[in-house]
């Protein structure tokens, strides 16, 4: 319940945060919403002699469409995403996702950047970001770089971010007309991590066939899983029940979940299948197709 002692530093800018990270060394951790980090520290799991608070850096909290991308500042709180008119009307997959992260109180503090940077395959945004083909913008001492989401998640709690890099923005290419997405999460109760979670983003082309399919799975392995075989199978096909069922089956096979109190690997894989099928139907409906 009580964390071990640490030093707290507040950064007023990204530059200041980077300087602090450089000076304080490997034992420094970034603190944004703190809804993943502080619980760990309270249980005395994970070491941090220094916390660098980046939650008050101005200009990291924004949601806007610009230059062909939906750009979300890393410091954007989940509740802001959930309640944004722009997101609700044009990106319901993100509302689906934000609305099932932890509980409403946690969402008042938790940030989109934190949910992704923490590198926990059980967090909900990663699968969605995989499905929509997002890009991560990171800033470090050498400047800014863009990391495609497919390269971002490396291992459990390990991302492609360098130790002295800060995730400043996640951006999603604005989907073309005829697109739709959905995120479904099976959880034992509100506030739990996913027993299984499926993010699906589709674009329907002429003739009602799928031009693009992105499928991401939550808590289905050491990193968020992209169901590439299922995606390949579906591309170019009409999303009828038969195709959906087969794609869902392939997606389930792509899952490699850990066994825990949420379920056996067998159950979780099957739930990935069930959720992918349901999310596909919902995404297709939202894309304007019949299902």
């Amino acid at each position, binding site marked *: *319940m*009580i964390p*071990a*002692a640490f030093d707290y530093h507040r950064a007023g800018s990204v530059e200041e945060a980077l300087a602090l990270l450089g000076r304080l060394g490997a034992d420094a951790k970034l603190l944004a919403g703190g809804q993943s980090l502080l619980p760990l520290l309270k249980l*005395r799991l994970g070491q941090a002699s220094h916390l660098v608070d980046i939650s008050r850096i101005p200009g990291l909290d924004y949601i806007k469409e610009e230059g062909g991308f939906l750009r979300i500042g890393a410091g954007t709180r989940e509740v802001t995403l959930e309640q944004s008119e722009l997101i609700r009307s044009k990106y319901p997959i993100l509302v689906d996702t934000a609305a099932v992260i932890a*509980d409403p109180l946690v969402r008042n503090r938790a940030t989109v950047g934190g949910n992704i940077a923490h590198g926990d395959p059980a967090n909900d945004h990663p699968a969605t970001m995989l499905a929509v083909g997002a890009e991560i913008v990171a800033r470090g001492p050498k400047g800014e770089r863009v990391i495609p989401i497919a390269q971002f998640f490396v291992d459990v709690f390990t991302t492609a971010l360098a130790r002295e890099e800060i995730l400043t923005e996640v951006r999603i290419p604005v989907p073309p007309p005829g697109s739709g997405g959905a995120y479904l999460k*099976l959880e*034992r*109760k*509100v*506030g*739990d991590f996913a*027993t299984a979670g499926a993010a699906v983003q589709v674009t329907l082309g002429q003739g009602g066939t799928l031009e693009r399919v992105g499928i991401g799975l939550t808590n289905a392995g050491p990193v968020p899983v992209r169901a590439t075989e299922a995606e390949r199978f579906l591309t170019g096909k009409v999303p009828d029940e038969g195709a959906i069922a087969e794609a869902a089956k392939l997606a389930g096979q792509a899952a490699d979940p850990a066994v825990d*109190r949420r*379920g*056996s690997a067998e*159950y979780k894989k*099957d*739930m990935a299948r*069930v959720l992918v*099928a*349901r999310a596909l139907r919902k995404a297709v409906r939202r894309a304007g197709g019949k299902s």
Partner: protein
Amino acid sequence: MAPKTTADVGGMGHSIRRKEDPRLIRGQGNFVDDITLPGMLYMDIVRTPYAHAKITAINSEEALKIPGVLAVITGADLAKYNLHWMPTLMSDTQMVLPTEKVMYQSQEVAAVIATSRYVAADGVEAVSVDYEPLPVIVDPFKALEPGAQVLRTDKKDKKDNHIFHWEAGDRAGTEKALKEAEVVVSQDLYLPRIHVASIETCGCIADFDKVRGKLTVYMTTQAPHAIRTVFALVAGHVGLSEERIRIVSPDIGGGFGGKVPVYPGYVIAVAASVLIGKPVKWIEDRMENLQADSFARDYHIKAELGAKKDGRMTALRIKTLADHGYADAAANPSKFPAGLFSICTGSYDMPHAFVEVDGAYTNKPPGGVAYRCSFRVTEAVHAIERMTDRLAQELKMDPAELRLKNFIPADKFPYHSALGWEYDSGNYQAALRKAMDKIGYQALRKEQVEKRKRGELMGIGISSFTEIVGAGPSKHFDILGIKMFDSAEIRIHPTGKATARFGTKSQGQGHETTYAQIVAEELGIPAKDVEVEEGDTDTAPYGLGTYASRSTPTAGAAGAMAARKIREKAKKIAAHLLEVSEEDLVWEPGKFSVKGAPQKSKTIQEITFAAYTNHPQGMEAGLEAVSYYDPPNLTFPFGSYICVVDIDRGTGEVKIRRFVAVDDCGNIINPMIVEGQIHGGLTMGMAPALLEEISYDEGGNMQGGSFMDYLVPTAVETPKWETDKTVTPSPHHPLGAKGVGESATVGAPPAIVNAVVDALAHLGVRHIDIPMTPEKVWRILKEKGVAE
């Protein structure tokens, strides 16, 4: 039945707002952790990761170097005062701190005393303990196998892990009846460990005043007097004496049985305060609470129900193995090591029955009746209500019809059950019929037929339970020898207001309101003018506390009896004031008047004032009374619950679509409060049925030891409970009232299980053990070929 008093008097039947709420809604409650005493120190506990291990060394040096850490207390320190072991409420023994070995994961090993909460936590991290692991036993069946490792090596001459054998009923007669039965259904049922997880954890502030030799302990306890006596007995040899021990149970954030046992933390805090001479506060974390405090259930039940082909039940036989952890620290009445489990013939007229329970030691925390269970009645009702549905399924009979056929008829009360209980009153048919009407039972059955044709899985489950509460008559009920009466002490002041003190201790049940309403009922003094006090052993009359739904049946009755004594004296004073004889007086709530001359009257307030200013010569002044009430019997609340579920064929999730609860707790003091108890109880009945479970792996490691995995339902998982009632008064209770706090926790789980099994019965499913997790249901769906 209309209330006898007006709304401003607020006697029985009125849903008056609670008197405890003004402070609680302002955040001005007085919970143990809210209390700070000058010079107070903080205690935190070092716990073992091993379920069974020898302690080879406890290294405190690093901890003692931390500024602010004052002491590290170990079993060796307590052993000097013979405080390292203590008796349990079932006359077993358990460790306060170990000197040789630990016997369950998270057991207390040492305690750090420090100047602040944060430093104490650092101290705990800095203590290092060396262990030699020992083989672990988590399976009670294995624990009882011949040649199994003996766990309680502290007990001289103990050669096995068997704790007790208890039985009731007619073994031979039941055996014969089962052999002769036209149909017999049998079933193994397991009710896993669960934990009350009240939102406030346990804790205390122990404050020993060296100069006065007085120990004050602010404690999260449901039974302050019993605790005081236990401390006096256990620590009398270190100078604690009962008249100089004060237990204060202030506002308690939920008890449900989890705050009845004496936890090692309390005793260590007391010892620390005595040794150091300063107040010591100990508040456990949630994980400590879940991992080390008393649990409930862990009953392995084997049940057999015999009947005639027409459905008339003829015999019930149950054999149970009770896993008690490493010590029997359950809080049962001492003659009932399996609690009131023998209520398991339930609401049915059962000619023959036999039940036996054996307790076994394992490497788990000790306990276990802490979860709103009325002393094992949840287990008993689960068994009989599941078996009744098993029988209905076997006979292809509607489960409502089967129940109606077997209910004890309303005119057969008091009813003597085959297992020795005298049920005071009941009308089971009326409750079930009311529930069926309210939920639209026949229409639901039709809907189920339609849905089944479309492959949709819908189920309807019934539970018609009989509860047994109000422990209890001194002939049979005691805890550690202290008889289970309860008490009330009422004093009316000159200005017509009252102070009423009781031996029970509310943890949210609303006694400050309901007891005031009892006084209002009996004396006509408005409930708002009655100040109710509980929980301070320096002032409250001796009582056994609040748990097992006993308060209204015992202390509530005592309140009525004390008030009646006061009324008798008030009558004498009224006669004196009105210059008539007592026989000429007529009572209505709040006043005595002269028969035939109603304008000649005296209000209770006038009489009270006169008790101090104008009492009859030869009579003592004042107006007060004490009653120690020894109930002549227990009370038997009952009800019928009907649950409708829909099963998601893809995920196995069970959704409760509707749940109707019809409860009967006799005459009702405050309908709003009773309804609140039912809502809460239903939620704590649903939780074990679908979500909550504590389990151990082979190494004795607990699964479900934090709120991450111990799934307490939120408002989203909890259905909209629908409640209703029937009223069948208790013939022996002074107010005709029965207890009710635990009825819903007892009755709900089998209703939900019965509904889920009903949804799958056409596929050949007969039984599912709780919790009915989505995966469990999914496996069944897959096996039966109906998964999405």
